[in-house]
């Protein structure tokens, strides 16, 4: 009964989302201002219905209702309760439902803050969001209904994919999707501005916090995914340039560009059409990512079950949404004029470089991701594009970006003189160079040509980001949250650059075979294999190896990697053992019994790899700080009052 209720709630949600879009976009179009009053109630109803549907599906999972096909395919009575809950978003249908739920919650958040927006503008924003919801709800109901029944009911379920039976699954998809879906808000603001045919600095100020929030979530989500892949999949790496990873990384790159371009539009009223385009692109890439992951056009390690009918549906939806938005853009953007100008050395130029380089980076990732598809479509045979393409091309745009960042944050708006900060820049650069050489040659001894360059750039970003806040602090000036957030995020980027450079230059990977009692040396560590013993869990059994790790003569850790055999899906999963020691990330993955009591084991030592994830967390914290600046809370009300007069305000 409950699954039918959930199905029905989903249908009602679809209708309400349709009404939300109709009244929100149609109202201002036919000059019926009173129609906007219906938008918020429609959204509220839609949200209640979506929450009901999610609750019904969750109930089916918790009570092991294997008459529901989706539950039977993704759960099992032996599965622990925690994973029965997270199994909800373990496959295509449920994760789509999660996406819809998050979109509804973002819309509600916008509606709650809409009081400070002009009425027709707020209606349009919520209308566009309703349109997106409508599309995704229709997609779910038409091709991916999670409430379909099995007749007769399955006696037991096929179990959740063992790879997904991990706490990482509990948090990674919801946070990642929150980021993805958050760009829908920026998209909706862009759509509303284009429908209105007006875009001023107040618009940028409304859009900024939403975009920054979404960006912070996406940053966190990508880092969690990378961390999860590192310790659960045991492939030995934190980034594989897999289509699914790229699908989340491209919106991040464009989203980062958008955050910066919005700053220029907000402060100086420039880059208007460019900001609009980035807002459209960021969410379009999010949706495109969904398409790539779920349609089966690209083969990926963690793709969902492929279904061409789904692919066709999303493609049509993409064409309508993105095509519609870009058509609107082609029609309206030429009307947006920016009067103000700026000199070459001004902050605006640096942010323009930032934008161009980030978009180039996104484009190279995009080209690499779609290359197999394009070559196949043109009958050029199958190509496979991997790290040998991605690493250098990505670095090509990232090196100048990180170098220009340190200079750019000391540039002034509008005026192009850098002479004021020349001394500071040189000083920090020299300090960074010394520290980087110390790190490269002193601690790690050697490395590639680019190693000291990368380290220098990373340290330089941190040092030069700190100059301004330290200066303000010494002079007793207040530090607005927006500036603090920016500083924190830039420091995060600096740390990421240091971590990535180090880990790329000094990683050690070794596959060894040991019999009990034997030892092996990897880098500065010695591993002694103690033996193998059986382990048993709630729905799996397997073997665990014990390894005593020492460095010099000092004990470091006892590590116990496992190999688990899940009963229902009969899938063997390697449970890696990970230990942090002196900034080195040690990873052991148990391999196979190679005979005669010997076991193969993969040993990896990645120095400073934890910095990469830590850096992402710092960046996300920076974003959160910036998004909660008082400026957005207090000035929104006054900006709204000014916007009523339709005059673009001058900063």
């Amino acid at each position, binding site marked *: 009964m409950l699954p039918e209720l959930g199905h029905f709630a989903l249908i009602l949600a679809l209708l309400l989302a349709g009404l939300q879009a109709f009244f929100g976009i149609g109202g201002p179009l036919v000059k019926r201002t009173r129609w906007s009053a219906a938008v918020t109630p429609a959204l509220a109803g839609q949200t209640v219905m979506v929450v009901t549907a999610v609750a019904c599906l969750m109930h089916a999972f918790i009570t092991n209702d294997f008459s529901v096909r989706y539950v039977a*395919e993704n759960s099992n009575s032996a599965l622990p309760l925690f994973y029965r809950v997270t199994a909800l978003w373990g496959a295509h249908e449920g994760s789509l439902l999660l996406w819809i739920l998050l979109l509804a919650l973002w819309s509600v958040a916008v509606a709650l803050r809409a009081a400070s927006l002009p009425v027709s503008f707020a209606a349009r924003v919520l209308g566009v969001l309703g349109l997106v919801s409508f599309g995704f709800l229709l997609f779910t109901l038409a091709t991916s209904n999670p409430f379909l029944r099995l007749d007769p009911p*399955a006696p037991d379920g096929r179990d959740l994919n063992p790879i997904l039976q991990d706490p990482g699954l509990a948090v990674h998809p919801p946070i990642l999707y929150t980021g993805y879906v958050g760009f829908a808000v920026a998209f909706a603001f862009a759509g509303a501005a284009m429908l209105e045919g007006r875009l001023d600095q107040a618009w940028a100020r409304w859009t900024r916090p939403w975009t920054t929030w979404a960006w912070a979530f996406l940053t966190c989500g990508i880092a969690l995914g990378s961390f999860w892949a590192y310790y659960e999949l045991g492939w030995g790496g934190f980034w594989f340039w897999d289509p699914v990873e790229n699908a989340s990384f491209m919106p991040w790159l464009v989203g980062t560009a958008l955050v910066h371009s919005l700053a220029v539009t907000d402060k100086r009223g420039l880059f208007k059409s460019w900001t609009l385009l980035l807002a459209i692109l960021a969410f379009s890439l999010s949706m495109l990512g969904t398409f790539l992951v779920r349609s089966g*056009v690209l083969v990926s390690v963690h793709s969902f079950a492929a279904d061409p009918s789904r692919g066709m549906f999303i493609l049509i939806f993409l064409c309508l949404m993105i*095509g519609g938005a870009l058509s609107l*853009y*082609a029609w309206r953007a030429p009307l947006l004029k920016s009067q103000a100008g700026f000199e070459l050395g001004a902050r605006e130029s640096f942010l323009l470089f930032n934008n161009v380089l980030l978009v180039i980076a996104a484009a190279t990732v995009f080209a690499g991701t779609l290359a197999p598809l394009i070559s*196949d*479509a043109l009958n050029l045979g199958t190509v496979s594009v991997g790290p040998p393409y991605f690493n250098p091309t990505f670095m090509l745009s990232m090196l100048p970006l990180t170098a220009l960042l340190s200079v750019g944050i000391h540039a002034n708006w509008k005026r192009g003189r850098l002479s004021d900060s020349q001394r500071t820049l040189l000083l920090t650069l020299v300090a960074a160079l010394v520290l980087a050489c110390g790190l490269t040659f002193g601690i790690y001894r050697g490395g590639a040509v680019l190693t000291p360059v990368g380290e220098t750039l990373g340290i330089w970003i941190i040092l030069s980001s700190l100059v301004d806040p330290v200066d303000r602090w010494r002079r007793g000036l207040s530090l607005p949250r927006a500036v603090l957030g920016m500083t924190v995020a830039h420091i995060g980027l600096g740390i990421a650059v240091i971590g990535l450079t180090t880990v790329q230059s000094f990683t050690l990977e070794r596959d060894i075979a040991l019999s009990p009692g034997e030892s092996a040396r990897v880098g500065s560590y010695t591993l002694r294999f103690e033996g193998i013993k059986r382990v048993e869990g709630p729905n799996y059994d397997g073997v665990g190896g014990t390894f005593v790790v020492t460095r010099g003569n000092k004990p470091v850790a006892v590590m116990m990697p496992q190999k688990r055999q899940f009963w229902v899906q009969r899938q063997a999963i390697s449970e890696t053992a990970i230990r942090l020691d002196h900034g080195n990330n040690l990873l052991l993955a148990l391999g196979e019994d190679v005979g005669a009591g010997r076991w193969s084991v993969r040993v990896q030592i990645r120095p400073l790899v934890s910095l990469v994830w830590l850096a992402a967390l710092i960046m996300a914290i920076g974003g959160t700080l910036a998004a909660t600046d008082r400026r957005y809370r207090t000035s929104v009300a006054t900006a709204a009052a000014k916007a009523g007069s339709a005059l673009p305000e001058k900063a």
Partner: protein
Amino acid sequence: MDALRPRLLTRFLLPLGLFALLAVVLTIGIFRSKDKGIIVSPLLGKPAPQFALPDLLVPGRTVRTEELKGRWYLLNVWGTWCGECRAEHDMLLRARASGLVPLIGMDWKDDDQQAQAWLRQLGNPYETVVADRSGRAAIDWGVYGAPETFLVNPQGVIVYKHIGALDEQTWTREIVPRVTSGAASKS
């Protein structure tokens, strides 16, 4: 101002144009992925993987893939530990009763005694059952989880794979037409 218009418009139309191009590529991609058989199994259209496994019910007999060649057969991967295999069992019995295509069972990572008891109790739908005790053969066949069913033609090529319990719909829509049309084209 008006003279500027067309040039400006082309610039702003560029993103739309690029997107249209992308949409074409993606459409081709979708149709291609249909040709690829939705990646149900990389083995589709390929010869059935070789195995030489002990017969579960005839002690001392070894069954090889080559011996099965020359006629249609369904290879069904199952195990007594698998709940859904129990669910599809009645369907398998009906399939055997139809006499259309012989069923070969692959008892996957199972205990021989339990498997024999299972077949005694529930009835044996299989012409032959091989015991894949280590699970090696199932890996060669690309089995992801039991039950899975493969349809192999007389040339020994896998023409269809079904994941999950075999049901009436799959039987009548996917398996029966393939076997009967294959037989008709031969005669």
